[in-house]
């Protein structure tokens, strides 16, 4: 099975996608290529590739731990079976494994990175500085073990739903007449039913990534979504899905359930209190699109423990658990309590 490295037509050097320029750049001769130019390049390469197609197919069945040979230096590239784009360990040229991006594994869309490696690191450090419970020495003394731009496989679900909700509501009114205070409580049975269309609810299709971490990275801006081309992956890592569209459906259903409940609940207005008795959402039509979404993954080693963070490669939103500094927590706790105490004692003395 072959590996694709996009090569600069001018000098033969490897081409990588540049997030800042939103184009492909040769780092050797500094030539720039736009999308059309790279597509033409790909077609040229594909022609070349089909010659040994039969050989490829045989290799595909061989094993899960796959090995490819680097087109630049000839060294073996060993990856697991979900990797779709990687680097050659020896010559560090970007390598794309088209076998993991074709057939059912061919993504239909991709959002390219907008954060470069340096910009991502800078954004991450800035984010850390804003965290009051983080030890000040985290960013200085900890070691950035791994920073990689990864295209994570996502299923984007379009769902058309019908929802129905029944609720009990009450209105309370009080008034005074003579020496009596009256309280009137009116009880209502409320029913709401409606339809809605949700577009592009994402669910990651990778077992390796934490679902909750990925959910925190949302939302991605779909307006910048492009038709998939392998060339976007050049210079980044990419995974193919190992959780199918049907397997993520339960997660989608749960989100639909929550969303429709919220939508319907928002239509019940004009009451003092509302309690929902039951809410059902039925997805009568759904369609999943396979896309690759950009994330920066950070792995930090701090005091012997590993911390993983993810950053939305498009918007820069960061998710992940920072180590909580007990000392800083205690300090904040005491500080806030002391200020609250003074305010309560001096000002609040009137009320207590």
């Amino acid at each position, binding site marked *: 099975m072959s590996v694709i490295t996009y090569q600069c037509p001018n000098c033969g050097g490897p081409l990588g996608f540049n997030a800042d320029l939103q184009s492909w750049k040769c780092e050797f001769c500094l030539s720039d290529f736009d999308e059309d130019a790279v597509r033409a390049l790909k077609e040229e390469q594909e022609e070349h590739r089909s010659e040994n197609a039969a050989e490829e197919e045989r290799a595909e069945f061989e094993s899960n731990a796959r090995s490819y040979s680097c087109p630049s230096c000839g060294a073996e590239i060993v990856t697991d079976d979900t990797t779709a784009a990687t680097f050659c360990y020896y010559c560090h040229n970007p390598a794309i494994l088209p076998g993991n991006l074709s057939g059912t594994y061919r993504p239909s869309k991709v959002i390219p990175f907008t954060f470069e490696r340096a910009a991502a690191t800078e954004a991450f450090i800035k984010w850390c500085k804003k965290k009051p419970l983080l030890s000040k020495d985290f960013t200085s003394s900890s070691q950035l073990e791994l920073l990689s731009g990864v295209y994570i496989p996502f299923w984007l679900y379009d769902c058309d739903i019908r929802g129905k909700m029944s609720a009990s509501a009450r209105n309370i009114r009080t008034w005074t007449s003579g*020496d009596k205070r009256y309280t009137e409580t009116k009880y209502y049975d409320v029913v709401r039913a*409606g339809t809605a269309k949700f577009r592009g609810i994402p669910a990651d299709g990778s077992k390796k990534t934490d679902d909750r971490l990925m959910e925190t990275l949302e939302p991605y801006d779909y307006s910048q979504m492009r038709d998939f081309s392998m060339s976007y992956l050049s210079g980044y890592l990419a995974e193919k899905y190992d959780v199918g569209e049907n397997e993520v459906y339960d997660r989608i259903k749960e989100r639909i359930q929550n969303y429709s409940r919220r939508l319907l609940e928002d239509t019940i207005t004009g009451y003092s209190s509302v309690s929902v008795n039951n809410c059902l959402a039925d997805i009568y039509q759904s369609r999943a699109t396979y896309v690759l979404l950009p994330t920066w993954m950070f792995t930090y080693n701090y005091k012997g423990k590993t911390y993983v963070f993810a950053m939305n490669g498009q918007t820069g939103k960061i998710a992940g658990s920072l180590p909580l500094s007990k000392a800083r927590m205690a300090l904040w706790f005491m500080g806030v309590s002391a200020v609250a*105490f003074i305010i309560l004692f001096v000002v609040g003395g009137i009320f207590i």
Partner: protein
Amino acid sequence: MKKRKYTLLIVIMLLAGLFISALTVMAAAQKIYDEAELFSASEKGSLEKQTVSLSERINMDVIIITTNENDGKTSSAYADDFYDMNGFGYGDEADGVLLLINMEDREVYISTCGKAIHYLTDRRIENMLDKIYPHLSEGNYSEGAAAFLNSLEYYVKEGIPANQVTKDESFTGNPSDPSYTVYRETENPSKKALICLVISLGIGAGVVGVMAAHNKGRIGTNANTYLDPRSFKLLHAEDRHVNTKITHVTINTNSGGSGTSSTHTSSGGASHGGGGRKF
């Protein structure tokens, strides 16, 4: 080892000393001044015990005095002066109650001071006198005194009436006059500090908790993030009125006289409340 024994000995001696001095203080704190000799020795002993224990329980001084001579004073002035001169009362405000049985005028008088003014409003004092004076008319002085102690304990347990106001005799009718004060519970500062401390610790824990939760990064999506705008159609909306319940409570409107404590200033300059009745 030997040193430790000595320390222990000293501690025990100190404790013993404290205990003895406490006992003498308690013994010195006489509560019954029976100048008219209306109580028998046993009655006096039992009343003494009751007043001491009641004083401790309600944290107010309770004094019972009897006299044959009023020194030309009214019962009110006699009771107030006796209270002030002897330095009765607990705390800065000299909280306490004094019962005077004045045999010269055949009058019973209750004098209040400090916190007791708030507890014993004019109406409550009248009610107490209702309980006390029949016994006195019959010459059962100790029973009258016992009735005083019982009703006093009852009212202190009832607490200060919610609408209690203190009106000095110099009150002109203007509510902004300083001689007219609406009672507001003045908690002792340590209790207030404790409440403030508990609340502020709660706020501190809450703030740090929220900060810790935010440390992870929040989910930034909601129902509208992925909703196709304008696609939401409400097909059916029904609000059915099923029941109405009306409840009512009577508002206590006679907030006037019942909560008033009238006060006057004694010759010693202290503010006293009180009331008396002939028997």
